[in-house]
């Protein structure tokens, strides 16, 4: 609350957007890529990275170690953060050790504080030259939700969670808000570079690196570009030791190259399945009640209400506003594909989405698959009467709910009944 007060206070002040720790929010992201892919993009944009190659077998890792030099770092390639503490990064002294370290990682599942107990599969490791690090720094770009501008953030404190830095030593974080009309300017680079305690030739070098990072951020519609740590080597060079790039889902249509980088193994299988079936707004939850709702806010509220009534949703699913029956049918395919499903709640309040189209989709779904779980349906809104007529005429069996609360209550009961 104190932090919030500070935000509002400062926002009203002349300086505009001087931020607080809670404002490290990535706007619009979702698609992630691996470190080795991000580093390849860095190299393409002239951002210095250590020499490295990716391997998918232990022998391959050994060969790369021979090529790069004796001492290398073996880094598990996973989307989740917190690799270091979880044993996903190993420093080795010779190719034999490189091979052994790679064999421990490849094919295993890495559990970090971000993954949950089941962990994520490691199928590739990055074999990278070990750098002689003198200083660890921080650099990132994201879009700030309050100023509506890209902001570059830099700190001389690197290698740790930036939110922690912002809380403990906020004075060590420097920001430059970038006007999209003129782009990143050299003076902004200097401000940040001096803030990071660079001097001499490093000021120009850091400014060039920042300019290139901003170019990459804009060119590829990133939602987050983060170098943590950015290091200064013992011989005074700047290197991006880690690389994290996330992308704006909404802009992927204009970046086929980025779409292709996606590693489906790293994501929740049900979420991948949903996307393959054209359901983009699907999130796996930990319950057993399948939910199909139109609208994100309503879908969240439905999940909240199910919990309030003593049940738990198996998913968040917003079918959106596209008016075709296919997405409805595919939502039912998701419920059938999810072995946890004990009951399903359909809650539609038609606005842009039309109730008749939804109803037709439900009937098609019943025709195409065996729904072995009770289905509670609540419909309201645009073309309601036509929708109700379609359901009634089809003769399908379902539990009718009069309103949103009635629907949640009935589906929780139905799920409990089905569990017996």
């Amino acid at each position, binding site marked *: 609350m104190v932090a919030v007060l500070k935000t509002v206070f400062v926002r009203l002040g002349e300086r505009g957007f001087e931020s607080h720790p809670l404002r490290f929010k990535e706007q*619009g992201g979702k698609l992630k890529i691996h470190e080795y892919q991000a580093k390849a993009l860095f190299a393409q944009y002239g951002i210095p990275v250590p020499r490295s190659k990716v391997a998918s077998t232990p022998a391959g890792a050994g060969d790369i170690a021979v090529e790069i030099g004796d001492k290398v770092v073996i880094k598990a390639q996973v989307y989740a953060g917190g690799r270091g503490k979880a044993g996903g990064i190993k420093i080795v002294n010779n190719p034999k050790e490189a091979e052994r370290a790679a064999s421990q990682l490849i094919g295993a599942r890495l559990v970090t504080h*971000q993954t949950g107990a089941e962990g994520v599969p490691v199928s590739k490791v990055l074999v990278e030259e070990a750098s002689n690090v003198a200083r660890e720094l921080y650099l990132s770009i994201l879009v700030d939700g309050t100023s509506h501008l890209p902001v570059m953030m830099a700190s001389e404190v690197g290698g740790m969670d930036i939110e922690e830095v912002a809380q403990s030593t906020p004075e060590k974080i420097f920001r430059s808000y970038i006007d999209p009309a003129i782009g990143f300017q050299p003076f902004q680079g200097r401000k940040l570079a001096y803030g990071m305690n660079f001097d001499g030739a490093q000021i120009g070098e850091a400014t060039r690196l920042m300019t290139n990072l901003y170019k990459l951020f804009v060119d590829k*519609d990133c939602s987050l570009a983060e170098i943590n740590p950015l290091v200064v080597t013992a011989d005074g060079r700047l290197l991006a030791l880690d690389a994290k790039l996330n992308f704006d889902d909404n802009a992927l249509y204009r970046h086929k190259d980025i779409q292709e980088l996606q590693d489906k193994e790293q994501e929740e299988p049900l979420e991948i399945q949903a996307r393959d079936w054209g359901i983009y707004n699907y999130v796996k939850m930990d319950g057993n009640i399948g939910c199909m709702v139109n609208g994100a806010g309503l879908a969240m509220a439905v999940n909240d*209400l199910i919990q309030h009534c003593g049940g738990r949703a198996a998913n*968040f699913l917003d079918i959106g506003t596209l008016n075709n029956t296919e997405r409805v049918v595919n939502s039912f395919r998701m419920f059938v594909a999810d072995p946890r499903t004990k009951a399903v709640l359909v809650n539609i*309040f038609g*606005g842009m989405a039309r109730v008749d189209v939804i109803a037709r989709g439900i009937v098609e779904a019943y025709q195409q698959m065996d729904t072995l779980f009770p289905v509670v349906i609540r419909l309201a809104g645009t073309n309601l009467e036509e929708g109700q007529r379609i359901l009634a005429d089809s003769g399908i069996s379902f539990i009718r709910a009069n309103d949103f609360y009635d629907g949640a209550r009935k589906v929780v009961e139905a799920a409990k009944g089905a569990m017996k």
Partner: protein
Amino acid sequence: MSILVDDSTRLLVQGITGSEGSFHTQRCIEYGTKVVAGVTPGKGGSKHLGVPVFNTIEKAMAETGANASLMFVPPAFAADGILEAIDAGMPLIVCITEGIPVLDMVKVHRYLKGKSTRLIGPNCPGVMSPGKCKAGILVGEIHVPGNVGVVSRSGTLTYEVVSQLTSLGIGQSTCVGIGGDALPGSTFVDILKLFQADEDTKAVVLIGEIGGTMEQEAAEFISHNMTKPVVAFVAGSTAPPGKRMGHAGAIITGSAGKASEKIKALSRAGVAIAPTPTEIGFTTNKVLERV
């Protein structure tokens, strides 16, 4: 009175000839909204749904006196459409389009600075003042004129709320969907200011959700600047952190984004919190009884 749109609104529809544009323009006309122009580049000079279509917004405004724009332009072209409307001096733009790239919206916000245009959305259900004007896809039939203002980040949840209000005999002055995007054209605070100044609005229902700090900013504004009672519901109490819940802006990244934090801030500002989404109407009723 009401806010943003009323019976003096002369609506222009960008993307009027598309399928969604057609369907919902027809609904707006049936509701009684004065739809005076449509814009679809390449189809200027024709008529669609009885409405004259123009190639450019500038020409459409000059010839029809349009003073608000409703947008159904596909996401890849939507930002350009907004920019065109801003450039033409359109006082109000209501953008329904979902899925506009964030960096496109960065340019739009930059261009909006210093201009008098007000942008609602994108990724929103629109604005309506019951009995006067519907500029959007909101379900007309469930609204009745009255004195409660509604402002929401969600479309369909707004319909739930409005139908609760209406069934309790509580009419609405204006309903505003500010949209679910991360960079909305107007925020809760922007709309609360308008409701506070509106004579016909006696109370406001605010429907928030996880992600961002807009609800906390609203709480600050309410505690210092609002004399009218506010009722709120925040969706997403059961949403897991780090997952984007449909809306581009609905993702918990840090503690401020959580529903519980937002509820805490709002209730500290004196806002009446509806414990479940189905009790928003009831909570509003109780608040109105006290007024």
